[in-house]
């Protein structure tokens, strides 16, 4: 056997031109071992919208603002900004001071390879870059028709032949920098969510223009930011290793949090200089089984719980099993700001003008059963579309009965729907965004539920690009989908029912309600206040009453962490969290011994 292995090893070396073994990590070096369940697309913040890319890039790039790590409800605090913005009385001008002494990481794009100081102009450049149509940023929609002169700048870029031809020194009235440490933003109309939506989001992170010019299209693989870490190795599709950025100015671990944080140990490191870890390593593991095994072997610090391993980890009382307790594993759960649903295309001639039909579909779905079957009972029923984590979540929404399971009522509504239609309803087509096992099982579950009350259903399993293409061209009839909020403000969810955002915008239902639109235009310029919260709830009810979708579930995230992994407090909106994490190296080493006794 040994001979075979040695022979094969020699052969592999010959074939692969192997670069030899990488030196093992220093045992005293603090390394965070993470898992990514999908490959990341790139590390250019302006061209980024997928969660996994943001999880990695947020350790290297910083924004003007960030969410407080510990406080709940979520609170925005300065990061690169020197204080919260000064807002004019008309809410149209924001003046933001920039911290001094912040440096970009060293990189060969700078003279002598030394990172230069961050200036206000870097933020102006980041925003103009997103506006540049040649850059094809997926983030433009957040700035569309918001900042004075920025839309005109975008128009100008259309006249440029190539990406490189765009003149970024061209003035934009709404983006000014009176000095190197002051940024002034002038808006066309009030935008109360601006700080959360745009300036606590990685897309506006300053990226050195020198780096963009130097690396050209290769910038996606050469991140040059100001964050606590910088890119060490990126073996695309395999792993990513970040190392400390020696130019990082340092940041203090928060000294206050919410009630219970001190008892939970989240304030043990209060006031200490961050980051704690020397390296952060992500291994890309797209199958759950190996990820789970690595966690149990102690080779990763935290893990999601794969559906098939749920019973191994969690009891019926939602507690850790004795086997997990023996391993000193901790369970962390939190409400995810997400809603999953079956959407109805309101432009569809069968569905659009037949409310009893849409309601009949909604009442035919046993959401509790779905949650038990597909999420091991973890998720929560979506009685409306605003997730529980939002301030404007209506605690009485359950009583309104929009998500109740009532097959008898559904049958009556179906009969009513057929009268409106003028005969037997045609086969309804439900589009599923995938042909994987989950999509098939999910589709079959919905199909069976609807067939039980008398519907004729055809499932259409599509790959994601086909699904997206059809959704964007408004050619799906019923579609399984989900929505995840990026800020702790239900406006993120309400906007998907605003008629100006019909597909390919966020309103995939192509829902139109002039009364809703009026209210939306009113609330979108309102600061957070009880009145706005009341209006949000009113708007949610307006939508629910029209049944543009059958809302099914809100996800509840479960994560397991080893006891050596410190300061792991779940956060629904922030990604740049590695700086807070700390590893108790002695406990990590002790786990190896513990494993021997378990085996």
């Amino acid at each position, binding site marked *: 056997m040994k001979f075979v292995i040695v022979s*094969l090893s020699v052969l592999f070396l010959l074939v*692969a031109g192997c670069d030899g073994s*990488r030196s*093992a990590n220093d045992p005293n070096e603090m390394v965070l071992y993470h898992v990514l369940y999908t490959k990341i697309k*790139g590390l250019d913040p302006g061209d980024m919208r997928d969660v996994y890319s943001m999880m990695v890039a947020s350790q290297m790039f910083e924004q003007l603002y960030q969410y407080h790590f510990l406080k709940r409800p979520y609170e925005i605090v300065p990061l690169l900004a020197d204080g919260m913005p000064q807002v004019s009385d008309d809410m149209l001008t924001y003046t933001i001071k920039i911290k001094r002494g912040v440096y970009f990481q060293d990189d060969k794009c700078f003279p002598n390879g030394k990172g230069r100081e961050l200036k206000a102009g870097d933020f102006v450049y980041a925003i103009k870059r997103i506006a540049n149509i040649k850059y094809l940023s*997926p983030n433009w929609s957040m700035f569309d028709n918001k900042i004075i002169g920025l839309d005109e700048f975008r128009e100008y870029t259309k006249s440029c032949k190539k990406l490189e031809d765009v003149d970024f020194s061209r003035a934009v009235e709404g983006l000014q920098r009176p000095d190197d440490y002051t940024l002034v933003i002038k808006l066309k109309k009030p935008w109360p969510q601006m700080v959360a939506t745009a300036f606590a989001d990685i897309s506006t992170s300053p990226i050195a223009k020198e780096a963009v010019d130097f690396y050209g299209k290769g910038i996606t693989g050469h991140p040059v930011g100001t964050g606590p870490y910088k890119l060490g190795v990126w073996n695309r599709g395999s792993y990513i290793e970040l190392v400390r950025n020696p130019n990082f100015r340092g940041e203090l671990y928060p000294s206050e949090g919410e009630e219970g944080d001190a008892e939970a140990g989240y304030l043990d490191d209060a006031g200490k200089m961050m980051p704690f870890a020397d390296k952060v390593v992500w291994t890309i593991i797209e199958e759950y089984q190996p990820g789970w*095994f690595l966690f149990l072997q102690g080779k990763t610090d935290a893990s999601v719980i794969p559906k098939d391993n749920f019973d191994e980890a969690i009891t019926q009382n939602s507690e850790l099993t004795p086997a997990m307790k023996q391993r000193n594993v901790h369970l962390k759960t939190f409400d995810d700001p997400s809603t999953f649903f079956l959407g109805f295309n309101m432009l569809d001639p069968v569905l659009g003008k037949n409310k009893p039909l849409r309601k009949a579909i909604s009442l035919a779905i046993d959401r509790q059963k779905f949650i038990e079957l597909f999420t091991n009972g973890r998720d929560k029923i979506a009685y409306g579309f605003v997730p529980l984590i939002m301030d404007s979540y209506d605690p009485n929404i359950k009583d309104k009965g929009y998500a109740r399971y009532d097959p008898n009522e559904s049958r009556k509504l179906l009969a009513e729907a057929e009268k409106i239609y003028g005969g037997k309803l045609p086969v309804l087509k439900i589009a599923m965004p995938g042909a994987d096992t989950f999509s098939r099982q999910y589709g079959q579950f919905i199909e069976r539920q609807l067939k039980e009350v008398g519907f004729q259903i055809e499932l259409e399993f599509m790959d994601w690009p086909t699904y997206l293409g059809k*959704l*964007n061209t408004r050619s799906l009839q019923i579609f399984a989908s989900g929505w995840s909020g990026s800020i702790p403000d239900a406006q993120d969810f309400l906007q998907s029912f605003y008629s100006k955002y019909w597909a390919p915008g966020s309103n995939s239902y192509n829902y139109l309600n002039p009364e809703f639109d009026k209210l939306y235009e009113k609330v979108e310029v309102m600061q957070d206040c009880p009145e706005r919260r009341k209006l949000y709830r009113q708007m949610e009810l307006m939508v629910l009453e029209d049944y543009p979708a059958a809302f099914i579930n809100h996800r509840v995230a479960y994560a397991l962490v080893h006891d050596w992994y410190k300061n792991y407090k779940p956060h629904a909106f922030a990604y740049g969290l590695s700086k807070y994490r700390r590893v108790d190296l002695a406990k990590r080493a002790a786990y190896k011994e513990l494993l021997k006794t378990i085996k």
Partner: protein
Amino acid sequence: MTTYIIRRLLYTIPIVFGVLLLTFVLFSLVGGDISIEIAGKNATPETINEIREEYGLNKPLFLSWDSQFINHFKSALTFDFGRARDREPVIDKIKRGAGPSLALMVPMFLGEVIISISIALIIAFVRGSKWDILAVVICVAGMSVPYLSFILFGQYFLAYKWGLFPVFFSPDLIIPQYVVLPVLIGIITGLGGNVRFYRTVMLDEMRSDYVRTAFAKGLGTGRVLFKHVLKNAMIPIITQVVMAIPFLFLGSLLLERFFGIPGLGYLMIEAIGSRDYFIINAMTYISAILFVIFNVITDICYAWVDPRVSFE
């Protein structure tokens, strides 16, 4: 012989051209406009137009020197496949993935061929015995078990439970360390079908007169099997073996995915899933070239191992 090789290589030109035309027609005409997909949700019509311009999708399909097909043709000839949808040059992705894929596939392939031919020779020799029957039953059973089951079983017991191999790729490991288990799994899963095929080939030869003559003359079993039978069975073996070589380049999707090997199998499947035509085009084109080259090599090998085959 040189004339023959040149003639065969010239034949490959229309084949490769046909592949280029076919992939272009499939992706451009049948696959439809990919700009909406690239733009994603919330994209404005202007953004979609810009994407068309960036990727040259607004150019005429055929009837122009600057048409999409001519550009597709040029990029293939120069091996400049442009950038994938994540903006990384396609050729960089292929170069990076080729090493790990070959590190997995080459030893797996060699192991499979050597072991299955050896076993096939032995069980062909003891044909009709209980060992032959047992081997055939095991082969059929092995072929009936899904590939994924071997992977899950191997990863759970050999790697996780017994700790004989790493569960998954890790930056601290060298390639041989994290490739051993998937290679073993690959060899075992491939044995059933291969042993059955080679056994049939060997059986045909074992019934020949020259085998009986060789034994009658007193030659040893090993000499008869490995020198005479094996040599005469080379034509079907060469067809099977040489024609499999181009596909080694394509890697193995499941093994790569379960063991974290950043190879080309996974790259290709991902590209198909996300309709990254730039990668699919490049991979199809390179595979086509490899396929026709190895086809020529197969023909040359025929003449080399069998004097009855000539280059005329």
